């Protein structure tokens, strides 16, 4: 198996821009489940949202696509067992992952101060995968 790595950084200020935008579009970036996971007792968890967006961008980077836009809603960053983030692909994102012959996709997210960073590691299988 050949490893592939993706990394991305999202400033929390980008999340603040999204939330106060005149054209509300958070629902085009995060699924309903992700939006639910991105709330805390005081409202939206800005660091959590930034981390989730960074993770999606990092997943997109391991897909190594050309002439494709990021399928934001097809790359979900959910909460796995133990609270660790896990990647769930659907629709176009899932097809792109198959085309890239990606096996398991692992993600790690961190945030401190004004930034969130995510790293994704995936493996390319030696043979094309069936759909």
């Amino acid at each position, binding site marked *: 198996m050949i490893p592939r790595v993706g990394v991305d950084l*999202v400033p929390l200020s980008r999340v603040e821009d999204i939330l106060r935008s005149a*054209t509300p*579009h958070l629902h085009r970036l995060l699924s309903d489940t992700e939006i639910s996971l991105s709330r805390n007792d005081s409202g939206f968890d800005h660091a959590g949202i930034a981390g989730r*967006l960074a993770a999606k961008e990092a997943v997109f980077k391991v897909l190594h696509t050309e002439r*494709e*836009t990021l399928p*934001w809603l097809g790359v979900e960053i959910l909460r796995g067992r133990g609270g660790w983030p896990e990647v769930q692909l659907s629709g176009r994102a899932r097809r792109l992952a198959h085309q890239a012959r990606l096996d398991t996709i692992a993600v790690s997210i961190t945030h401190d101060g004004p930034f969130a960073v995510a790293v994704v590691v995936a493996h390319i299988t030696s043979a094309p995968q069936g759909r």
Partner: protein
Amino acid sequence: MTSTAPGTIDAVRDWIVGKHPERSPVDQHIDLIENRLIDSLSFVEFVFVIEKASGTSIDVDTVDIDDFRTLSAIEKAFFPA
């Protein structure tokens, strides 16, 4: 695509300038992506702005990225004369 309300490319140009006032004026033929006026995160709002200005609904899963590279291409693709 479904039409809801007509508009002009000026609203799209104004949005870009609002995000990057230091880059004004934005040439009709400048590559917005290569010149980092639009990135993957802002692309989502960018599409939303084009939809509102043009009165069209855009399916991002089927778009041709070249239709978004320049204001000229956007006007041709989404603001038919």
